[in-house]
């Protein structure tokens, strides 16, 4: 049964890594560089130094778990590359990373922006077009990632026979 290609471990690892790295984009670019979108900025408006530091604490807790998700993704990736039945498809992996990023944004955006109202993309506007654009862009990331995964799997099917004879499925 070793010849049955199993993409799940690679896609799951890539998705976990994409979720973690997407969380870091959120934290580094939005929270720290642009200083928007902080964790509790709708509850504790960043109008005073105290509230800014409180937001910094909750941002930090969020990013600690983002780090854990990245570590889980790395461990899963290590497990995947050691399995002979997992084809190492570049497209599947890249697609999974992109899809993971989109999934992170959709879950975080839906829960924190629209359900719990912990923060919004542009806080002074509340729920605004930017929050919907955030979700829309995230759905596009998921769809783009998924189509890349499908392309990688299709390519793997075509090339599987030749790669299988070489002992390991390393596909585009």
């Amino acid at each position: 049964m070793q010849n049955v290609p199993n993409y799940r471990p690679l896609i799951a690892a890539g998705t976990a890594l994409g979720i973690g790295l997407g969380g870091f984009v959120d934290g580094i670019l939005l929270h720290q560089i642009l200083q928007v979108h902080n964790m509790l900025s709708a509850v504790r408006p960043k109008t005073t130094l105290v509230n800014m530091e409180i937001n910094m604490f909750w941002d930090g807790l969020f990013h600690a778990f983002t780090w854990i998700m990245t570590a889980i993704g790395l461990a899963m990736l290590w497990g995947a590359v050691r399995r002979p039945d997992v084809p190492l498809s570049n497209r599947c992996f890249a697609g999974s990373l992109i899809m993971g990023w989109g999934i992170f944004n959709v879950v975080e955006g839906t829960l924190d922006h629209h359900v719990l109202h912990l923060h919004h993309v542009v806080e002074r506007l509340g729920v605004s077009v930017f929050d919907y654009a955030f979700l829309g862009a995230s759905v596009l990331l998921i769809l783009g990632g998924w189509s890349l995964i499908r392309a990688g799997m299709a390519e793997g099917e075509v090339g599987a026979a030749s790669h299988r004879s070489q002992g390991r499925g390393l596909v585009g």
Partner: protein
Amino acid sequence: MGEGDLLRRSIGRIWMALMLALPALPGNACPICETDTGQQVRQGIFDGSFGWNVFVTLLPFPILLGVVLAIYFGIPRPVRLMGRRSDARITAGPEEARRPRL
């Protein structure tokens, strides 16, 4: 295990513990410990809504982990379909058995 091995292993563990403790040293700076602002920050963090804030801050992660696990193991299907699928994998001919999973 010889005495030398035991000593070497103990030294290794102590060294590892020290290395792991080093990153925590900056915690001594503790910006929320001494100053008036720091104390207000600490009160703001550990107020009555601390537990709720922890919950809502971490809420996305079990969901995200669930998505990853669903991809890894597959979404559970009704027993009838699972039976068909696993039977198919066991009894399938060579071409069907090689079809990629997922």
